[in-house]
């Protein structure tokens, strides 16, 4: 479809000075407009669905935009008032930001540690067991965040979940005596297990791919020099895999900062319990539960800004390693 349009355009301008017949279309496609025509639908979609809404959310963040503005279709600019409100709100500093940043940091560290240990272990296995274990890890990766969260909620169910039943059986806690989802710390403890479970397979598989490229001689040379396994890991593996580790850390950081589903779907996580809100949930409930779309947008912009900084670091790291 698009290729015939290209052909027509080329024939019409005819500036090349040779007859179109003798030069294959592919050659001419390589010139000028062709790549842009091929890119047009994709760039249009990304522009309309991602870039334009980004502008829009920035615009909304400067307005006191509520349900009535939505119904009337008018604007209500208030300058930076929303930002001042959000940034001076103790709720942000005491609850939301610690929940977001603290949780993300703990998750990134744990995901990296578990993923790396799994990768090192997989690397030491023979081919058959390695591929069987890798498939098992893939299952953990594939379980959707949505259903994965419900599984962990069920495991930690206060009445008849596996965890409380086990503790009850051991005589440590009585079933139904305590609801873990109402306490901020235990709530995020469960969320951490959920996120690490969902996130470590990516790290393990990526690190494993990297580990398999490290030349064996490097380890042997280090072993000759009397390095212990621990020393070999820090002096050979880590420096060689530095770029891969950097990418893993940054991607995990981005993912763990914007965790939404895994919090929202936990009991009380949908805004019912303000103690456990993070930036994503706060933004969502401000908009869709309170109808404060302007305020919700402001929080969304702050979250995006936070992620943008991390993304820039990521791109720069990647650019050093791979020529695009």
């Amino acid at each position, binding site marked *: 479809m698009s290729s015939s349009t290209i052909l027509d355009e080329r024939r019409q301008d005819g500036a090349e000075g040779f007859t179109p017949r003798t030069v294959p279309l592919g050659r001419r496609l390589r010139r000028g407009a062709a790549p842009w025509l*091929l890119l047009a639908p994709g760039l249009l979609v990304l522009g309309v669905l991602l870039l334009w809404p980004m502008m829009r959310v920035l615009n909304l963040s400067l307005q006191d935009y509520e349900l009535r503005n939505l119904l009337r279709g008018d604007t209500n600019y208030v300058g930076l008032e929303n930002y001042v409100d959000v940034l001076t709100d103790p709720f942000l500093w005491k609850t939301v930001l610690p929940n977001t940043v603290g949780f993300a940091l703990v998750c990134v560290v744990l995901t990296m540690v578990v993923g790396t240990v799994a990768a090192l272990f997989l690397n030491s296995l023979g081919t058959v067991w390695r591929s069987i274990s890798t498939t098992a890890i*893939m299952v953990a990766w594939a379980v*959707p965040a949505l259903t994965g969260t419900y599984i962990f909620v*069920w*495991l930690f169910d206060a009445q008849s979940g596996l965890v409380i039943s086990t503790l009850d059986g051991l005589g440590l806690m009585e079933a139904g005596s305590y609801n873990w989802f109402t306490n901020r710390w235990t709530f995020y403890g469960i969320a951490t297990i959920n996120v690490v479970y969902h996130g470590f397979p990516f790290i393990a598989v990526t690190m494993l791919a990297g580990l398999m490229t490290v030349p064996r001689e490097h380890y042997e040379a280090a072993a000759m020099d009397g390095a212990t396994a621990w020393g070999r890991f820090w002096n050979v593996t880590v420096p060689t895999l530095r770029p891969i580790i950097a990418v893993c850390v940054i991607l995990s950081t981005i993912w763990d900062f914007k965790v939404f589903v895994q919090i929202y779907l936990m009991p009380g996580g949908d805004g019912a319990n303000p103690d456990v809100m993070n930036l994503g949930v706060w933004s969502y409930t401000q908009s869709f539960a309170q109808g404060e779309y302007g305020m919700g947008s402001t929080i969304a912009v702050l979250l995006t800004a936070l992620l943008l900084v991390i993304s820039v670091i990521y791109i720069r790291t990647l650019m050093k390693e791979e020529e695009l």
Partner: protein
Amino acid sequence: MNRRTPASTAAKAIGVVVLMSLSLFPFYWMLSTAVDTSPLSRGASLLPSGFTLEHFRYVLVDAGFLRYVRVSLIVALGTVVLSAIVALLAAVAVARFRFRLRTQVLIMVLMVQMVPLEALVIPLFLQARNLHMLNSLLGLIIVYLGFSLAFAIWNLRGFVAAVPRELEEAAYMDGATWLRMFRSILLPLVAPGLVATSVFSFITAWNEFIFALTFMQDSSKYTVGVGLRTFFTQNTADWGSVMAASTIITLPVVIFFVLVQRNLAQGMTAGAVKG
């Protein structure tokens, strides 16, 4: 470093068992709860108290979960088809042409993948509302197209670039047109990549929750993820049904994902070289 002492073999065996049980346990717990005759009184027993398909029957027939499955299937397949076409065109552009701003386009594609989708719920919701696209399957498909596209372009780019240029040149030598070359050379060689990319688009659309929750307010248009919430009442949950429905959502994703991972690796290493 393959010391084959009994101790290290035993340690590895234990390691495999630990790794596999940790990875598979939540998945197993979901499956076994879904077929348990009385999941709420199962306690700490690792085996279900009995086997039944009653939860599945209840979920699919009585609770009408099949309706949500149908909506999700339409949305996901629509996303897959649109995303495959648009991404393939763009991937050919960035992998086969050298043009000004090419690197910038690639960086932009990479950057938009980082955009937190949660931040776009508000503007896209308002936009969809103005365009009367709320409760519309097409509206959701278009949104998911936007989300899956960046990754699809990025992923396909590698597959297109892996097809040796000489094969294309040879086709032209034989007098093939660009379209003919595309159909007979490029498309078959990129097919594994296209399959893998499509599966990822499918999973993106199938798993998505926030937009489905916000856009689909009419219960007849719920996707599987949003429909799952209907099994929860104020304080209690019917865990047998929830896990049966979760199984229905999870199983196709897990199967697809595990299959494609192999395909992906294969396509990247062997695909194009064999010609």
